[in-house]
């Protein structure tokens, strides 16, 4: 078998550079944006047997009864036949003793000699320090060409971060990444006063991303004071006013939508800003989609994927 390092830039999708920047910025507490959270690794191979090995560092401690251990510290692996669209799960695993390994035998799934594309979703509460694949000696491994002409930015709070998923493959940004031929950027904060953080970081995000076709902003108002939220919300809108792409605000209920629409009028920001009433879709199937009024689960992420997909279909 030969070993390939998968933490090479050519294999990594979704803003490894962005996360590096955010990690270095001054924060009141230790940065809560994981280097790995929302990141993907993709490669194509003709190897029928492979072994994926990983290690984690700086695993965030805390009480997360609503995030699967697999999502907190492990990886999720999917495959598809090259040049097809249907993705299938291989497995997902946690990181007992700081890491793990999994052996994959593609003979279980494939009838004939076929190249496969592998996608590995990273943990959301830990940093990946090592990610390698061992493949058959005579086989090839190459990176998947990124579609640099279309980028989408998702920036926000707990839902964008992945809070509520059992496996990181179920994060709605990761679902969108495997269903669409875009580069999907995920920049998220699991902390207080999220809008302040978003307003502070959005400019750097926009500078780094080429060909931005849309921005989705999670208006996470749960863990913040209302007046701070509105103050930074206006600041945020101001920074976005010269952008040439539509902006979608989501995670709001009716009352807040009215409030924020009025705010937009006051600032006289003439922009393509759309407010998505995502909450009503989640609350329709609350028992299936949510743990409580504040936290969505895997299926809540599927509902969000379906809502955002309707917009991405038109891009």
């Amino acid at each position, binding site marked *: 078998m030969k070993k390939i390092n998968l933490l090479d830039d050519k294999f990594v999708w979704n803003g490894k550079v962005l996360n590096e920047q955010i990690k270095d910025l001054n924060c009141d507490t230790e940065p809560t944006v994981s280097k790995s959270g929302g990141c993907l690794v993709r490669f194509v191979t003709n190897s029928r047997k492979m072994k994926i090995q990983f290690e984690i560092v700086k695993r965030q401690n805390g009480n997360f009864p609503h995030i*699967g*251990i697999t999502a907190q510290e492990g990886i999720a692996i999917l495959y598809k036949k090259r040049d097809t669209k249907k993705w299938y*799960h291989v497995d997902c695993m946690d990181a007992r003793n700081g890491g793990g390994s999994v052996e994959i035998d593609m003979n279980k*799934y494939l009838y004939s000699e076929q190249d496969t594309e592998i996608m590995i979703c990273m943990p959301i509460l830990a940093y990946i320090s090592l990610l390698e694949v061992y493949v058959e000696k005579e086989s090839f491994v190459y990176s998947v060409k990124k579609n640099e002409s279309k980028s989408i930015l998702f920036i926000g709070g707990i839902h964008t971060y992945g809070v509520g998923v059992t*496996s990181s*493959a179920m994060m709605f940004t990761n679902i969108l990444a495997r269903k669409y031929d875009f580069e999907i950027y995920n920049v998220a904060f699991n902390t207080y006063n999220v809008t302040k953080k978003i307003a502070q970081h959005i400019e750097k995000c926009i500078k780094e991303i080429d060909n931005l076709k849309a921005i989705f902003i999670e208006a996470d108002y749960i863990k913040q004071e209302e007046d701070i939220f509105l103050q930074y919300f206006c600041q945020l809108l101001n920074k976005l006013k010269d952008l040439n792409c539509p902006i979608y605000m989501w995670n709001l209920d009716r009352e807040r939508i009215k409030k924020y629409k009025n705010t937009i009028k006051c600032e006289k920001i003439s922009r393509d800003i759309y407010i998505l009433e995502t909450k009503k879709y989640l609350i329709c199937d609350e028992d299936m989609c949510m*743990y*409580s009024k504040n936290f969505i689960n*895997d299926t809540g992420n599927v509902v969000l994927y379906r809502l955002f997909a309707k917009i991405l279909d038109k891009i």
Partner: protein
Amino acid sequence: MILEMLCFIVFSLKYLIKYKHRRESVINMEYLKNVDDKLKCIDENLFEFVDLMEHPELVFGTPNIVGNNVDFSKYSYETDKEILNYNESVKREYESLRKASSGCQIRFKSDSNLILFKIELRRKWDYRKLTLWSSSGFDVYTVKESGEYIHKTVFAPKTGENIFAEIIQINSEEQICIYLPQYNEIKAMKIGILKGKKIESFKYANLLPIIFYGNSITQGASASRSGNSFVNIVSRRMNCGILNFSTSSCCKGLLSVADTIGKINCSAIVIDYTRNAWDWKEFEASYDTFYKSIRAYHKNEPIILLTVSNFNQWKGYFPYDDVVKRTYKNAIQRKENTFLINQRSVFNEEEYDLVTIDGVHYTDLGMYIIAEKICEILGDFYDSI
């Protein structure tokens, strides 16, 4: 009495003011070294406790009542012995999960506005492929007179803890149903109600339970919280009790389990025995015999057979489906009340990656859709007789 009332008012106000911004009814969780330890944050003198293990009338979903005590073990001594024929990983899983409270519920109503739980679980740690709110979660619903279930809250101890106290707020005389942990065992549980108040059970409208026999999926993986496994969703939709004889890795079509299931009066049986068989030969040798053993006891009850939960095209499991389908066809030819759910056909292949977290274990979406199928079949059956 007046002093007690004043204490209660002050106590309640203190918590209600402190936690007024919280939407959930859960107020606080305290971790203990022993379930009998005095609490630091809550004045226990305001409560009187009921030991759940001595009140089987409050517990639904466990077939074993030993004397007047609750025993969450579902399997017979014969099954304990049969499992010894299998390999170490099966034996380990069986030992760890044979008393897991998957499919069990506590149902009560009380005129106490505050309910205090003191609980000791067996396991302290997360279970792979599950959230804590699923593996160790107590999932609380209110049940209206109409039979509608409204989700109220869910709680579980944090990683590394297994003995804890939790308090919830309810409306007086509200009917409460709590789905118990799917992948953990309750070693001790005390329910505290305010002094002078009462607690009593409330039963299901439909008396005979539905029996489930399956593997890790039927045990509840990977629903996000314990109430969202498909067995519990069926229980809510049909408003009837269930008995869940499902244990991860241990679903082997054991004749001792068929015997146990056979001797229970039930309204239906759902068999999800497939992928825990070591290989196709073992499966083919046991499946039809297992089915017929149950059918010999339950001549007329509907039995639903499930094919393999296989959503990543694992070729090795396709022959298992053939075995299930053959058993189903033969049963139909004998004019038995047997039904088939082909799990892979229930979902659109484009969305296979959305209904499970790993190609096998259902998300809540998968759980809901399978539950709907089961309810549809059983609903049609009961309407037709």
